[in-house]
């Protein structure tokens, strides 16, 4: 292949000029190179952020292994090049290429983008452009690859609707394979791109945005979505796996340092805690666990395949894994003496969590992190994350006493019901925790407060509420900065401008696509990176597009408002979210729904999966939904 050779020659001259050239060469252990010419369908999987961030993405890893297991398909990867590399690629007219065979992205049949967070949108447009592919779906004929996208952010697909041929909503394991099958049939028939889109629109969970037309009220609020193609479904229900599928074990081992160098094992999917701000907690239901046996064998095989020194056990709430103690004991005995670091994030605030961490604590010691999220009783009731201060302080004491010197505490500010008193209480609580630490181990004790700003996300009980104003956020951050000065304390915060960006991108409708496009054309990219000061570019883009950012960010939605994302069904019903919103207003707590079902709708939405596979273990109670609204007291 001459083209490959000439690209290699060009790269040899370019790569010495860029920072960390190892990002752009592939060749990692466990990367898969197939004979391009012999493969029927070629898929590029793209994570539109820097290699260092994207490499360890579990979603990409799962799909990469799934697709490459098929003999008729290949999957290769691409990431966003950093500024320096992008300039050189453009200067030498080198289109974005895959890391495995260095093929230009235009040569693939399907390009799948993962969009786990909204601040990747401009990067995605940039990558299409770097690939020399038109950014608008309607400017791409069948000579271009089919562009699909999935990931958490796509539960509100509208802001990116004009750029993506089809969204794959929900868990990707099966749906992408079904899209590939449909693509193969279509390709043999040699039909139009429209035919392809119609074919895949029939697959459950596929949303082809060009078949729908949004309409708006004169005041700018969303009115309805009109079906333009009768074959497309009215609503799109997310896809889930009834049973957690085979976990990946052939992790790509990077040849350079990246953010997470490790085996990641999903111990369960979903969460039953019902924290009202939590997007992941709402869209990833129902809760499904992997067996201990499967987790252990996944780690074993993973270690054999990779040689990694670190294992992360992933879930939204580790302490809630049914037999978590047994799991941890099993892991610590099986892998003792192997110079392995095992991390178990997202632990509940109780001394049991300290026991768990202590069992995993190998010779390499990290910090301890807890997420109380709120410091006042009132705010805890509003967000539905009840913890008692007593419990937090006694847990903190245990943590320090048993050898950790630094405790990280995560909090959130910015909920519309929050007062300055609630904010002050965060600082007061941090100081109390530090005092406990000093009592336990003296001046070595450190408390780091990570305070993020709340963004009301679609498909959560807070989708109706407004995002805080920048001045107000700054004021709250100033209060915390002043109060959290002093030895042993550290305070981290999020730039309010970044919060604004995340807010309009997550809450936008299809009109926002113009803003995204203009912002990208005017240079916005890497919006998740604080070192890129893109805020002014975005403000300019809003004004050029004739839209108001405040409309998306700071407007409280009326309780009957139709949302631009209502046609995307996460299984959790809007009526349930509404009840939960009203509960938050009346400070009503709701318990763990493993113990009592609050009829969120998930079991009804996926009842067919349970019927098809009666052995499926979900942690939803096997009861008729109980509609009694009972209030819980804060446990001690």
């Amino acid at each position: 292949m001459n083209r490959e050779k000439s690209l290699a020659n060009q790269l040899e001259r370019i790569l010495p000029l860029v920072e960390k050239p190892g990002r752009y060469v592939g060749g990692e252990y466990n990367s898969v190179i197939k004979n391009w010419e012999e493969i029927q369908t070629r898929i590029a999987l793209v994570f539109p952020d820097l290699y260092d961030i994207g490499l360890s993405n579990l979603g990409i890893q799962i799909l990469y292994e799934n697709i490459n297991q098929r003999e008729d398909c290949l999957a290769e990867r691409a990431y966003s090049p950093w500024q320096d590399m992008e300039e050189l690629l453009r200067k030498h007219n080198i289109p974005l290429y895959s890391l495995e065979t260095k093929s230009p992205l235009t040569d693939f049949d399907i390009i799948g983008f993962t969009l786990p967070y909204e601040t990747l949108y401009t990067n995605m447009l940039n990558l299409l452009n770097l690939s020399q592919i038109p950014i608008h779906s309607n400017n791409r004929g069948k000579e271009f690859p089919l562009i699909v996208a999935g990931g958490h952010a796509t539960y509100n697909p509208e802001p990116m609707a004009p750029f993506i041929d089809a969204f794959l909503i929900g868990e990707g394991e099966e749906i992408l394979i079904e899209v590939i099958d449909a693509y193969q049939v279509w390709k043999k028939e040699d039909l139009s791109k429209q035919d392809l889109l119609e074919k895949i629109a029939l697959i459950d969970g596929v949303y082809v945005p060009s078949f729908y037309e949004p309409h708006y009220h004169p005041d700018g609020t969303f009115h309805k979505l009109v079906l333009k193609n009768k074959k497309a479904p009215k609503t799109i229900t997310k896809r889930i796996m009834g049973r957690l599928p085979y976990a990946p074990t052939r992790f790509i081992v990077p040849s350079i340092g990246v953010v997470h160098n490790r085996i990641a094992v999903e111990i369960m999917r979903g969460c039953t805690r019902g924290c009202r701000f939590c997007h992941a907690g709402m869209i990833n239901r129902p809760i499904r666990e992997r067996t201990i046996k499967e987790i252990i064998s996944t780690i074993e095989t993973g270690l054999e395949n990779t040689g990694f020194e670190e294992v992360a056990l992933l879930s939204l709430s580790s302490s809630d894994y049914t037999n978590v103690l047994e799991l941890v004991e099993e892991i610590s005995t099986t892998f003792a003496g192997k110079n392995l670091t095992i991390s178990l994030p997202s632990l509940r605030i109780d001394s049991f969590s300290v026991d768990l961490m202590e069992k995993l604590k190998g010779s390499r010691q990290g910090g301890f992190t807890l997420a109380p999220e709120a410091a006042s009783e009132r705010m805890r009731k509003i967000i539905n994350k009840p913890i008692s201060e007593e419990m937090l302080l006694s847990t903190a004491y245990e943590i320090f006493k048993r050898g950790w010197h630094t405790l990280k505490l995560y909090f959130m500010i910015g909920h519309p019901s929050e007062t300055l008193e609630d904010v002050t209480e965060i600082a007061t609580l941090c100081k109390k925790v530090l005092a406990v630490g000093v009592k336990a181990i003296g001046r070595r004790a450190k408390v780091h407060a990570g305070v993020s700003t709340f963004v009301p996300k679609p498909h959560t009980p807070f989708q109706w509420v407004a995002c805080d104003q920048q001045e107000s956020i700054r004021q709250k951050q100033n209060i915390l900065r002043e109060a959290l000065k002093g030895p042993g304390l550290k305070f981290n915060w999020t730039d309010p401008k970044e919060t604004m960006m995340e807010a309009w991108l997550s809450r936008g409708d299809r009109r926002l696509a113009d803003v995204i496009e203009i912002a990208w054309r005017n240079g916005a990219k890497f919006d998740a990176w604080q070192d890129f000061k893109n805020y002014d570019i975005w403000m300019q883009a809003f004004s050029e597009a004739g839209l108001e950012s405040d409309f998306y960010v700071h407007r409280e939605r009326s309780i009957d408002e139709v949302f631009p994302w209502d046609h995307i069904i996460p299984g959790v019903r809007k009526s349930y979210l509404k009840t939960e919103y009203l509960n938050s207003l009346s400070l009503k707590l709701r318990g763990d729904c493993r113990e009592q079902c609050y009829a969120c709708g998930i079991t009804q939405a996926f009842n067919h999966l349970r019927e098809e596979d009666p052995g499926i273990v979900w942690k939803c109670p096997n009861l008729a939904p109980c509609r009694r609204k009972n209030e819980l007291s804060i446990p001690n």
Partner: protein
Amino acid sequence: MNYRYRINYSKNEGMRYTSNLDIHKMWERTFRRAKLPLAYSQGFHPQPKIQQASPLPLGFLSDSEIVDFFLTQEMDLGSLQTALTKSLPAGISVNSILSVQTAEPALQTQTIAAEYDVYFLEEFDEKIIRQSIQALKKEASVMRIRRGKSYDLRPLLLDIEIIVDEPMYLRMLLKSKDGATGRPEEVLDELKIPVQYTRIIRKKIILANEMIENP
């Protein structure tokens, strides 16, 4: 009781962009994949006992890197090589493995010099290069500044010659000792050859117990 082995290996393909620190990691992981009994240091942060002879600058290829490993069990060299070969990433290949005395000094301190070949990615005038090499050789001292520090490159450059072959290339022998390491790209800069138009291959690392033919 630890057993010490010396591996000579080549570094090619994309691996040329893997830094020294990451090469260290690469070896640790390769040993772990191969299930070889790599020895670790004691203490709170156990580190694998791996010693590299001399760091190879990012982007350089190499036909002959040297690295020492300590194992907790004795292995025969053949099965060691077989196990490693199966577990190595693309771009790294083992040339030879030796068993060495555990008590030998650290590998870094044994390194005295390194030989490099420099190939050209663009056309360069042989005559001009020849002239600048001669001029460089005549100098008694070549003062340069690297990372804010002034040093004399000349005594670090033990030898340099132009090899007229198809294609033509440069061969240079540079001192490579702790605190006195000559860098090929510094020599190229003296010769007014932009480093991005070259491909530099380390051909040999010379250890103290080895003879240097032309000192």
